């Protein structure tokens, strides 16, 4: 587990994490629940959110970006003021870097999510040794993987289309109509990358088709993004960061109105950073909710086991003691 995930882990009580470790050690033969790779999920979220934060705060200031910097600001790196200066001196450049960075990160994150979703759908349970089932899973995975490039293409297309939609919405919310259009677009692109891309890659792009598959897909999208009611951990991991992104972007517009005349109030820095922070908060929130639910389910199952098999008394009391 990478060190970055430590804070998340420490949020849960020692007792819980102990139990969780126990859970992963125990052979999970008789538990037909959704596949939930808690440890891996935690570490991936940790790395992913840290990298997103890095993208927002450091990438626009790296030596790569200084290639494109105006010469005036060159050679002043190192002072604390410069952090803000380099981030705010050219909002367009900052936004472009954040978009580029999150583009790469989202592809990685979405493909991880997609794998998880696939495993969850295939009913992967660690330690299952039923060979026919294994074969079935393999076949499914093959089929799924073969559609990967098509799905990726569609997800990219969805992100591009929604980025335009988001830009229009942002303009409707009051962004300038006749100037700063590229900045507004980049903000729309950022929001689309953070909120829509991983969903489109994992769940597939909804269409207006009338066959069962597209109907199910459409209803899933509506249930997620209009009714805001996720059912599985994967859906939560998709939805909460998306909500966080949009809300963060919305909240981020508020400080622009203050008459502080600070460089960071330049359009669209605050909504962009709001979106990124919202995304991070949403990811961590999804992780927390998923973790708590998982532990709760384990608890429930254990209770059920305890009730059904009263003979396994000694193990049960031992567990209670931990």
């Amino acid at each position: 587990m990478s060190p970055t995930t430590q804070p998340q882990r420490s949020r849960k009580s020692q007792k819980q994490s102990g139990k969780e470790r126990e859970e992963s050690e125990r052979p999970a033969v008789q538990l037909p629940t959704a596949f939930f790779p808690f440890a891996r999920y935690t570490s991936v979220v940790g790395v992913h959110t840290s990298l997103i934060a890095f993208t927002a705060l450091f990438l626009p200031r790296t030596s790569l970006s200084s290639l494109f910097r105006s010469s005036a600001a060159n050679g002043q790196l190192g002072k604390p003021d410069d952090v803000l200066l380099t981030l705010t001196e050219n909002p367009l450049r900052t936004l472009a870097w954040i978009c580029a960075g999150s583009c790469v990160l989202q592809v990685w994150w979405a493909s991880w999510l997609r794998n998880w979703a696939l495993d969850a759908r295939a009913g992967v349970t660690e330690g299952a040794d039923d060979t026919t089932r294994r074969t079935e899973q393999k076949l499914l995975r093959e089929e799924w993987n073969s559609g990967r490039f098509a799905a990726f293409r569609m997800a990219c297309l969805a992100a591009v289309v929604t980025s335009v939609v988001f830009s229009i919405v942002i303009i409707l919310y009051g962004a300038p109509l006749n100037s700063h259009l590229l900045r507004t677009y980049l903000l729309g692109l950022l929001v689309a990358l953070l909120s829509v891309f991983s969903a489109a890659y994992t769940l597939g792009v909804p269409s207006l088709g009338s066959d069962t598959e597209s109907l199910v897909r459409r209803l899933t999208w509506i249930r997620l993004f209009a009714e805001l009611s996720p059912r599985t951990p994967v859906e939560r991991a998709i939805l909460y960061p998306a909500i966080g992104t949009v809300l963060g972007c919305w909240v981020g517009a508020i400080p622009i109105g203050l008459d502080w005349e600070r460089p960071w109030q330049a359009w669209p820095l605050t909504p962009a950073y709001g979106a990124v922070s919202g995304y991070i908060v949403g990811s961590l929130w999804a992780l927390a909710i998923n973790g708590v639910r998982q532990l709760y389910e384990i608890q429930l199952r254990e209770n059920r086991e305890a009730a059904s098999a009263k003979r396994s008394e000694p193990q049960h009391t031992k567990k209670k003691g931990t």
Partner: protein
Amino acid sequence: MWSRGAQFICWVFAVHLIGIWLFTRGFLLTRLALSEVNSCDVSDPNCTLSPSYKRMVFLIIDALRFDFISPDPPLPSSPYYHNVLSLPAELTKAQPDRSIIYYAFPDPPTTTLQRIKGITTGSLPTFVDMGSNFGGSSILEDSLIRQLYEAGKQIAFMGDDTWMSVFPTSFAPNMTFPYDSFNVEDLHSVDEGVIRHLLPLLHHVGHRLGPDHPTMQAKLQQMDNVLRETVELLDDDTLLVLLGDHGMDRKGDHGGDGELETSAGLWLYSKTRPLVDPQADIPAHLLTNRTYPGASTAHRSVQQIDLVPSLSLLLGLPIPFNNLGTVIPELFWTGKQATSFEHALRTNAAQVKRYLDAYRLSPAGSELDSAWKDIQSAWQGAMEGQVPALTMNMFTRYALEACRMLWAQFNITLIGLGLTTLLSSSLATFAVYDSLGRIVQWEPWLDRIASMTLRWSGIGTVSGLVVAFPLRPYVKDVAIFDYVAFGAAIASSFAVIKQALPARRLEIGSISSIPLPLVLHTLSFMSNSYTFWEDHVIPYLLLTSIAPFVLTGFTAPTPRLRTRILFFSSLFAVCVRLIAISTVCREEQQPYCHVTFFSGSTITTPPGLILAIVVPIAFGLPSAIRQYLKISKSDQGLANILLPTIFPSVLTSSSFVWILEWMESSEVLGPSCSGALRLTRTTLAWLSIGTILVVALTLWWLIPLCIKVETSEPAANERREVTIIGFANALGSPYLIFWLIFFSLVFTTTQLAGQVILALATVALLSFLEVVDSVRDVRALNLAFSSSKPSEFLAQSQETRSTLSTVGLRFSEVTPIALLALQVFFGTGHQAVISTIQWKSAFILTSSLTYPLSPLLVILNSLGPVFVFALAVPLIATWNTPPLPYPPSTAQNATLRACLGISLYFTSLLLGSAISSAWLRRHLMVWKVFAPRFMLAALCLVAVDVAVIVGYVIGFGRISVAVGRVFGSMPGANDAAKARKSQ
């Protein structure tokens, strides 16, 4: 027609008025600016003294605090601003008979414009100086400048251009060099300019950097050098006066009445002629001293306005008519002889008495009621006193104190009473709004509440009277009426709250029902930035408020509903964004704002694009409305008469009125045509307003319904079939026509760009109504799907179903209408500042000022947008609501709640702005930003309340009567009515 609930709405209105009245009396200090001029003959000894000086150099350094020139600055002294401008102290030490430094007290508000008025007129300017030039900033009161001008003296001026707006004509044109002072970032241009022509300002350094800054030192050093040069060049007949118009606080700001803000420096210097007699034997009681915070000794102090009579008499001019200052003794007292001083003081006291008498006789004379007796006796004392120097001084000082009490002090008691009234009334309104949504048998319940408001108002009146008499001696300036009004309002409010707010647990789920846009909007008034950017805040909140509807649209079970919701909410959003383009920028928004309402920031002609599209838009708007009515097939009846002919012609001619106005004022056709243009546009304006008021209103009153009844010929042995077209929207469509009548009135008084905005807003409004209607359908369908047996749901009686669809009126449906109302206010070229009042609209019906027509038109132009869109709020409750069962009890309930809802929204805004302006009453921006927004909020609330009463009582009342006449006898209608009665 005096329908149920009308009494309650009227009570709400009355309580709002009381709250506004109490708060305004405590907060908005007003004074009547008298335009009389002291025009006595200078040769008359009672008029003035013989001049001691021929010329005067009058240097004002903005925000020159006393310690900047004090010989004894407070400890620890600052290297940046103490002993830097040291010439006054040096000269006073060297030549005590020709130089004197005073510690001056400038009266709050210490804002630049108010201080300019104070220094030149000697009066106590308030934020709102009522007078013939309400809204303009030029001084029409008698002033030192005016007296100089009348005496034929030449006045050279250089400096801040605020002075030019205040004295536009008094300065000699070839010696006048104004500089723009608004850009506080720019530290030097005004000063450089003044020094080039003569001299300076510290003000901007203070605002931008605060006093503790090296720039301050450099600036003061520069001033000191300039002063030294000036003193070099001074001749014998010239008096040099240097003063700060006000002080500044530790951060460099000013505007309030803090001790440092009201500490200004004043220095008088005469090069050769003795100015004061160091041997003068002046009684100590005539000389006041004040200690600067932190200084070791007290220093001779004067009121800043004392300068006005003193300088007038030193220059041999009559004292300005409005002056309340008292001559400074040292300047007139020589040796043991007080004759010269007594003469000066007598002239001064007589002038003050003349002013008070004139004010007493003016329309605002009753303000002096409480102090008048004491003023009279002080005057008696001054006339008969043995020591005139003492008694007359006492009289002028007493007069100043009395007036200061009236005009310059916030009355915290009244502010508190006003806020309490507004708060309790909004709680009471909310309680009733909430209960009406829950209580099924709401009619008798509301009757009880209404009679309760009456009874408790009576009880409150009596107890107010009872309390008033013992309290009066202890509480200043609270009249009997205030006690009575407050008692009535508060007693009835609490009675309503107690009755309507049952013990109900606050659920966690109720957090989600907190209206976020309202909360944010109310809180935004705490910040000056959001207050003056409100025209950008509102579209943001408006779009936010529509977002939940869009989300519901995606979940719609049928494609038709989904398309409708998404299409109409997009249309709404686009209209809102287009409205947001139109703005007249207010000063504080510069340089980030471009005027789009006019074709430029300095001209008031409409933009070319608007000129091109306004006529088609005005002509096409009624057919667009018709398209909306067609959705529910209610483009029948009255709609079929008015929409194709009357409304297009009225709206088009209203546009032509303003196009002709533009032609006339910009002389497109040359000056010769202006008479004909004027006549044509007056006629057109009268025609359109007359048509609306006479034809449209009468027709609506007689046949309000927009339905068509078709009777098919009965075939043999069959019952006759009656089809009513437009039944589904039988309540909403006539109300829309009623609304259009008022809309057209406002349309006529609105300038061209505003007319386009009004049209866009109408489309937005109707789209929103369709969205709300569809979202209700979605909700009802989802409810049906989620109930275990859909058939059971369908089998429920019609009454229950309509209850489900309309009683579910939610506050989130009212919020967009309230926000739209304000958005249209800003879009039609208004801002929350007095200077954006469109006076042009006063003259559309007449070519000269006519009472009461002209003020009425200006009110329609300014508050009309808010009024009209508040008037539209019953449409949310009635749109696509069928009139059966009769009487339409649930629709009436929803209408009443919608009315209370929008009134609540605006009360909340008023509370927010009132609290922030009372809380921030010492803030630099209070008179520029917070107080004007409070005034706007108060006016908007009154407009909304009136609109709601008109809409509910006249609009909805008349429609339900008419609906009853048509549908009341229908089968099914009576059953329901009977069923209700038997319950």
